[in-house]
């Protein structure tokens, strides 16, 4: 099986990081994975995104055009990628920044979480990305929560390792939102 994901948001929201965690977590489970960032000239306040592929076979194209899953942390990202999500796919979006969601994708599972407010409640407004990732994992089950937790040690630089417990709480928070 091949599962394709796009993570998108404003620069600084940590979309590249959650994409890398998905890829690294998949690798730790013995899967074939790719992570590919959008790069090049970007406008301040513009969107950043990355493509992640998790598969039990060697990955072909690392550029995802029709994702099975989308994590959209801001409005422009949801608008840009929502239409390309495959039928039966999953979208987790940041309801803190997105008030209106088009209702033209009934065949896709849409899940809004107030990532910013929930992150503030955890005491650090930067972990909204991890809450969204936790919710996405709960819905898609593409990679196990434990693998993402293990990936944190590999992906985060040493000087950020003291933040791993906070990030793990945020992941669990997101997971609980969709499991509950």
């Amino acid at each position, binding site marked *: 099986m091949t599962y394709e994901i796009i993570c998108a948001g404003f620069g600084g929201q940590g979309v590249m990081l959650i994409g890398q965690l998905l890829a690294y977590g998949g690798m730790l489970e013995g899967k074939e994975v790719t992570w590919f960032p959008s790069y*090049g000239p970007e406008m301040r306040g513009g969107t950043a995104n990355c493509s992640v592929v998790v598969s039990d076979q060697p990955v072909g194209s690392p550029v995802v055009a029709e994702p099975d899953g989308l994590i959209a942390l801001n409005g422009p990202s949801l608008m840009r990628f929502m239409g390309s999500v495959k039928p039966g796919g999953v979208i987790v979006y940041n309801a803190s920044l997105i008030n209106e969601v088009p209702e033209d994708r009934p065949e896709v599972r849409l899940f809004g979480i107030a990532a910013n407010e929930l992150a503030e409640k955890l005491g650090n407004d930067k972990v909204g990305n991890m809450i969204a990732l936790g919710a996405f994992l709960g819905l898609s089950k593409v990679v196990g929560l434990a693998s993402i937790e293990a990936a944190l040690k590999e992906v985060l630089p040493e000087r950020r390792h003291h933040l791993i417990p906070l990030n793990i709480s945020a992941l669990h928070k997101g997971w609980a939102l969709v499991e509950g």
Partner: protein
Amino acid sequence: MERVMMKGNEALAEGAIRAGCRFFFGYPITPQNEIPEYMARRLPEVGGVFLQAESEVSAINMVYGAGGAGARVLTSSSGPGISLKLEGISYIAGAQVPCVIVNVARGGPGLGGLTPSQADYFQATKGGGHGDYRLLVYAPGNAQEMVDLMGLAFDKAEEYRNPVMILTDAIMGQMMEPVVLPPLRTVTAEQPWATTGKQGRKKPNLINSLGIVGEELERINIELQAKYDRMAAAEARYEADGTAEADLIVVAYGTSSRVARSAIARLRQEGKKVGLFRPVTLWPFPQAVLASLAADGKRFLVVEMSAGQLVEDVILAVNDRAKVSFFGKLNGTVPTVREVYDRIRSLLPEGGEG
């Protein structure tokens, strides 16, 4: 074996370190900057030298010098920077000095853009610089091959005393994938031909690409061509996936081959017989294998991110024995899986209208 996630550019850099490369000279350009960035940090750890030159021209001449002293030396750039290095590359080829040159290609011509491209194929395989010279050219298809082919590139450069190029593109360079790293190799910089001082020998070693006296230049060229013939006979590499039973064979390398692989996987699920032929060496081109597939009555579709460069080598190899179709995306755009899928379907015997 422990797998680690690495960007293609980082995999190339660490692959070079593991292969005993201890010198890097370069000048920054997107989308290959992770290579010098990585080397700047990593080379001092293993007792090597990283130097950011004042220009690409300087960098390639530093490579010429270090290679001439027998050291394993790397430079990397992207299209516009490679164009600047071509004079030096021609000199290095003429003087028969080993080195490895990476081109993480971006869209051109001119300053072009930062997006991926395969339009530097002619530049890499048909010379680019002046004179009758050849580079051994590797085109990695994944991050693991970035590591493995880099190791091979250094060995072959030394074996043939010839510059070796690794031609890849912005997607392959920026993408992260798991790799298994080989152990760190210890290599000696002592080459019998290298200019490291006479060391008791009567005659000094000389490294030069000048052949101005009498028939000297003809002699040099005959020697070079004999070497290229040996390389052509021994060094062609490729991957053939499902080509024997295929009705249609897609020919592609690098990023295009990955997009093609995804499209082919979909078609195979529908019971279609589609193969993938991926040249791993762009020079020497794996001509004989394609020729024999053509003789078996296969038809071919060449997919590349250019206006049509690889396709010329395929047509030459096939030599009128089979039909060759072409699907190219112009500089800066990558074909989607759906586009390649649609194109293949339209060419299949029963395809097109369904």
